[in-house]
């Protein structure tokens, strides 16, 4: 069996004194979508920050297709094929739409099946092509989300992390984002999808991990979880 696309093994991470991740292990199989669920503050975004190298784990490792990347700088991890669509989108607001894409452009890492270029991103998101010379800060929320996804694709990643891509978007735009993710999956991209909205995740994901207070409480295939009718509210409900 090939190496997992992304692995976190026994990861402990801290913000200052606060022990945010307490021994998290998760595996994203190559070509799969792994849904990461959990309440606010469960540690989902922290997992993302650990994976991309913004928050180095104090204990434990992160590996990308079998290569340990924890301890490396974020820019070094990015060049090894990891891209992030962050929570809140975090596009470069004072850059034009086009510049947001070109600064992220990189030649595909060996093994990337679908090399992305400015043209193919514009073809996938025609709205971005129309607005390519505008400052990105003036885009609507949905357009900013498209731009954040396009920016991540421009680096021709092997693994894509998406942190709450549906957050704050109208239902129609959410559907568009979800169909984009489905398309990327069909192209063989390995995707780690963080969401508050469990229904969206179960529609797309092959595997599910649920975090609670910095620990993994559920880790199984989506199909088995749905068949077993496990009470998700126990882990995800607010009350």
């Amino acid at each position: 069996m090939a190496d997992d696309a992304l692995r976190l093994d026994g990861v402990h991470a801290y913000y200052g004194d606060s022990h945010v991740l307490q021994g998290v292990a998760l595996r994203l199989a190559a070509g799969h979508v792994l849904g990461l669920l959990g309440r606010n503050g469960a540690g989902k975004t922290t997992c993302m920050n650990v994976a991309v190298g913004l928050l180095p784990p104090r204990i434990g490792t992160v590996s990308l297709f079998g290569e340990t990347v924890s301890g490396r700088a974020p820019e070094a991890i990015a060049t090894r094929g990891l891209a992030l669509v962050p929570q809140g989108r975090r596009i470069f607001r004072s850059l034009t739409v086009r510049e947001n894409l070109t600064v992220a452009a990189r030649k595909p890492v060996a093994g990337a099946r679908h090399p992305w270029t400015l043209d193919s991103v514009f073809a996938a998101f025609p709205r971005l092509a129309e607005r390519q010379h505008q400052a990105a800060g003036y885009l609507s929320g949905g357009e900013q989300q498209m731009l954040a996804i396009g920016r991540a694709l421009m680096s021709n990643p092997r693994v894509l992390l998406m942190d709450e891509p549906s957050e704050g978007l109208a239902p129609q735009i959410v559907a568009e984002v979800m169909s984009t993710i489905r398309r990327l999956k069909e192209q063989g991209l390995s995707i780690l999808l963080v969401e508050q909205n469990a229904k969206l995740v179960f529609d797309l994901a092959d595997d599910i991990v649920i975090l609670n207070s910095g620990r993994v409480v559920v880790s199984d295939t989506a199909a088995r979880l749905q068949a077993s009718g496990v009470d998700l509210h126990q882990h995800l409900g607010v009350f």
Partner: protein
Amino acid sequence: MSQWLLLGVNSITLGGLLFLLSAGFSLIFGLMRIPNLTHGSFFMLGAYLGVTFLGLGFDFWLAALLAAAAMAVVGGGIERLLLRRLQGQELAQVLVTLGLSFMIADLCLMLWGGDPIPLDTPPGLGGAVPIASIVFPTYRLAIVAIAVVIAVLLWLMLERTRLGAMIRAGVDDPAMARVTGIRVSRLFTIVFCLGAAIAGFAGVIGGPILSVYPGLDSDMLPLALIVVILGGTGSLLGALVGSLIIGFLYNYGQVLFPELAYIILFLPMLLILLFRPQGLFGSRVP
């Protein structure tokens, strides 16, 4: 009447010099999130190096370019060897730049002595140009022209190249820029080299007006600081407008209210900090 107009030319000249000083200061502030308190020293050390190159018989402009090149090396060295080791520790970085500024001041005093060194106006620019009924000093107009040329070149670099877009991305959101694969630490070095070079160049070409003396660094640094607070960190347009504002406030303030010179300069900075902390042109798109 003509005296007031001449004061206006002097203001624009000082504005041009201040722009050359603060453009780099502003980019460093925007990108690295620290005020580089060595920036006034870059200006002064560049001017002294210019003195030495002139003494070796180089042409004025060649001396200015050599001083700029030397300052690029000094600036890049400071970033690579000192500031990089303190990455993420902003207070420590600021203190290092402050300590360095004192050390450079001492070094200059030791090497070039305590007497002010006047620089001759470069040949061909010594006279004055009559425009309408007023005569303008040619060299001051030349400084304005040089500042405009450098401003345009900087603008092209920042707005029209991929490197410039990367620098702006780093100013917008450094963490996200790194995650996107942009080597922000390399940008730090580039911006530091560039900022130091332009400041050193400005020190030399400002020499014939300001002369070169111990304390030139601490005369210039606060002005750069005010310019950047007024204009907004990381904004070239902000540095330009801020420089002109301070150029005018400084010159007219000293004639009209000489005893209030520093109040006139620093009051706008306080007001901006209180009511518009991102500055007039800070990088905040809605």
